[in-house]
């Protein structure tokens, strides 16, 4: 009988800490026009935003729940409180943040990042941004980094131009829901030619029972500018089902570069139905680094729209599905212009009855000649309770292209273990090395403290037992 590798669950530790709920405002359960108006009024929004919200609500009501992919039949959208606002006002310095909130963030490692003067930290607590700081030098350069609500008020012309243009409410039910109830999120605007040389970070989490989080992230990187943005999510465990339907819209202009890293580590009762899209103009580049760990159900397919000549996209993703999890992740790349290139590297691990599903789409339109693309999917399946599926769809409407696709699924090779053992490495350590080597391409893409966190998340406790 072949030996089985034991990989322990992610040690959730601080992520399952629940703080006492204190709210100044909590909307009624369910969703109707009144609620939307209330949300908008509470935020003191301009009319054009309210109109967008109401239009989205209309679309939301007319759209069916998607039936493909994950089973969403347990999800009762009507009973989810869409909007929860903690009773803390915007803070300007770390000291002013209430202690219990601070403590959680501290345990999540944010002050450390601050101490290392990595960048401004915008952490979203429940639905509102509670803490924000941005280095003076960025402000001087004209970089705008704020929360979405403030952006709506302070930079209406930018928000109006881009808001929900990449992810339209018509796209699917949860995009429409997002459009109607969105709350919080980050807004970054990098002016032409500015290179931000340290990563901007935002860390947010959900903390109220039954609260959905619908944060909207919008990043505009103007001509020739550069930015690295990091977003991390975690939420404590609750018995009430939680829904996350955020939206991320990234605009990479001519010759600009954006690296968007995210670690999504939701609690095990979360429905993570996030939509992320990037539009890349000529000679621009988008890099996605995406880690999906927690949540009960995830459906997450970051999309790159390469609409300018010589635009590039790179996607590096890892998914870890453990017991009771269905993680349906992947990426979409649309080559809509000539000479565009894309690279997709996806890894997944499933264990203990977890279900990892890679669902990818690569499309080259008629106009997109001289396209180059490689897609690599590797799946590691650690026991025979788990399921791992790979479905990469390739659609090509052009002859002058070069597309390669490879996928591999399997367990840890006995030969590799044997080889390492013949070199004097104990079996458990050999297996650990192989699994670490498997995720290494992802961890090395992350900044140091996130890589450390990722390693903590995948606490690999390996021992050979007869299975």
């Amino acid at each position, binding site marked *: 009988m*072949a030996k*089985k590798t034991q990989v322990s669950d992610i040690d959730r530790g601080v992520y399952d800490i629940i703080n006492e709920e204190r709210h100044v405002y909590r909307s009624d359960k369910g969703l109707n026009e009144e609620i939307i108006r209330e949300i908008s009024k509470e935020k003191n929004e301009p009319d054009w935003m309210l109109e967008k919200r109401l239009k989205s609500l209309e679309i939301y009501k007319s759209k069916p729940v998607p039936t493909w992919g994950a089973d969403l039949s347990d999800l009762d959208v009507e009973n989810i409180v869409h909007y929860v606002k903690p009773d803390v006002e915007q803070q300007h310095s770390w000291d002013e943040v209430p202690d219990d909130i601070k403590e959680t963030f501290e345990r999540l490692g944010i002050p450390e990042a601050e101490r290392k003067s990595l960048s401004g930290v915008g952490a979203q607590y429940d639905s509102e941004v509670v803490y924000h700081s941005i280095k003076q030098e960025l402000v001087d350069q004209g970089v705008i980094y704020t929360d979405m609500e403030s952006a709506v008020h302070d930079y209406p012309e930018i928000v109006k131009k881009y808001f929900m243009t990449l992810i339209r409410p018509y796209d699917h039910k949860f995009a429409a829901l997002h459009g109607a109830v969105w709350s919080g999120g980050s807004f970054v605007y990098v002016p032409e030619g500015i290179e931000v040389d340290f990563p901007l970070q935002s860390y947010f989490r959900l903390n109220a029972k039954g609260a959905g989080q619908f944060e909207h992230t919008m990043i505009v990187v103007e001509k020739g500018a550069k930015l690295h943005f990091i977003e991390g999510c975690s939420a404590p465990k609750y018995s009430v089902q939680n829904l996350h339907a955020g939206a991320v819209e990234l605009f990479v202009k001519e010759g600009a570069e954006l690296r968007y890293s995210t670690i999504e580590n939701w609690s095990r009762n979360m429905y993570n139905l996030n939509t992320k899209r990037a539009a890349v103009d000529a000679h621009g580049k988008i890099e996605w680094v995406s880690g999906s760990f927690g949540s009960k159900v995830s459906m997450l397919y970051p999309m790159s729209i390469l609409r300018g000549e010589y635009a590039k996209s790179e996607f590096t993703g890892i998914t870890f599905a453990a017991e009771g999890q269905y993680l349906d992740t992947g990426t979409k790349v649309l080559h809509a212009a000539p000479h565009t290139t894309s690279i997709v590297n996806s890894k997944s691990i499933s264990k203990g009855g977890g279900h990892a599903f890679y669902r990818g789409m690569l499309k080259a339109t*008629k106009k997109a*000649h001289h396209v180059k693309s490689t897609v690599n999917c590797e*799946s590691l*399946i*650690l*026991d*025979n309770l*788990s*399921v*791992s*599926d*790979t*479905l*990469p*769809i*390739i*659609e*090509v*409407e*052009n*002859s*002058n*292209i*070069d*597309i*390669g*696709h*490879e*996928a*591999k*699924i*399997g*367990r840890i090779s006995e030969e590799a273990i044997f080889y390492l053992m013949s070199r004097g490495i104990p079996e458990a350590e050999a297996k650990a090395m192989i699994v670490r080597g498997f995720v290494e391409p992802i961890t090395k893409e992350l900044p140091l403290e996130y890589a450390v966190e990722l390693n903590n998340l995948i606490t690999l406790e390996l021992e050979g037992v007869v299975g």
Partner: protein
Amino acid sequence: MTLKEAGIDFKRIPLPESVVQITPDKYTPEIKKGSKKSVIHDVKKLIIPSLEFKKDLGNDFKNFISRKAETQLSIVIDQKDQDLIWLDYKEHGDLIENNHIYVAPYSKGTIVMDYNNFENSVHHGLTRIVVDEGAELTLIKIQNNHLDSQFIDQTQTEIHDNGLLKVVDIQLGSKNMIINYDTNLKGYKSKCVYKSLYMAADDRGLDLSFTANHIGKKTQSDILGKGVLGGEAKKVFRGTLHFERGAVQSVGKEEEVVLLLSETVKADSIPALMCSEDDVIGEHGASIGQLDENRLFYLMSRGLSEKEAKLLVISSSFKEVIEDIADEDIKLKSLESVDRSINYVIA
């Protein structure tokens, strides 16, 4: 009843609106080679696959076939030596066939279904195969029908312990075609090998689906697709490997190579790996539009144009598959058909 209502909904391929009006010919293909004894028309003693198939065209399709089929073959191979049956389908109108093939334990055989109908026709076929313990079946389907024809064909196979199925599927003719192969690797060490060759130009459409479902222990599958598309041809190639729980130490491989010759083709590839067992190896690869540049450069340096060089490379890779066919006559015929088709695609 439209095909959609009949449970067939292949969005990308335009299909005849109504299948109800089809009045199939009472037709039996000519046995060009092989013993007539093997082809029995008594369909009462059928050995049919016992398990459900993953990619079934649906009960409606099955009912439609069994109700309307006017061509029913029941082929039994029970020879210890290589047995060859060559069925020649030509000069017929619309055809609906419902066939059964049974390969008895430890028997070996080759069945060639050679479709080369010159008339414009519609073909609906379902072939159910059981390969028993230790048996081997080589199934060669060559489709080179009239270029306005419709060709819809499903082959379902169940393989028992140590059984082997080899399929060579060559699609050259017809305007629109749906080809669906599904194999349940039920037995210990059962194995299936699919080799699919296709060529299409003009506005023709192909929907090719090859599925291997690993159920038994140490089962093996290999899917290879090779094709050339020109004109405004559309194709979708679905290669699916399923690994059921308990299919330990199974190995599945899938590979697809497509060469696109014009700017107006549409080529979709949907390779899928569905895995519920850890102790397996599944691999798939697809490459679209790329050929070994060194090889092309070499040929072009010898005076060939880029197109000629590409075609030479692809035809030699087609021939690689055809060369494996043991019977000389069939090999010759296939090579001829492929050559003719290549010339057509260039023109």
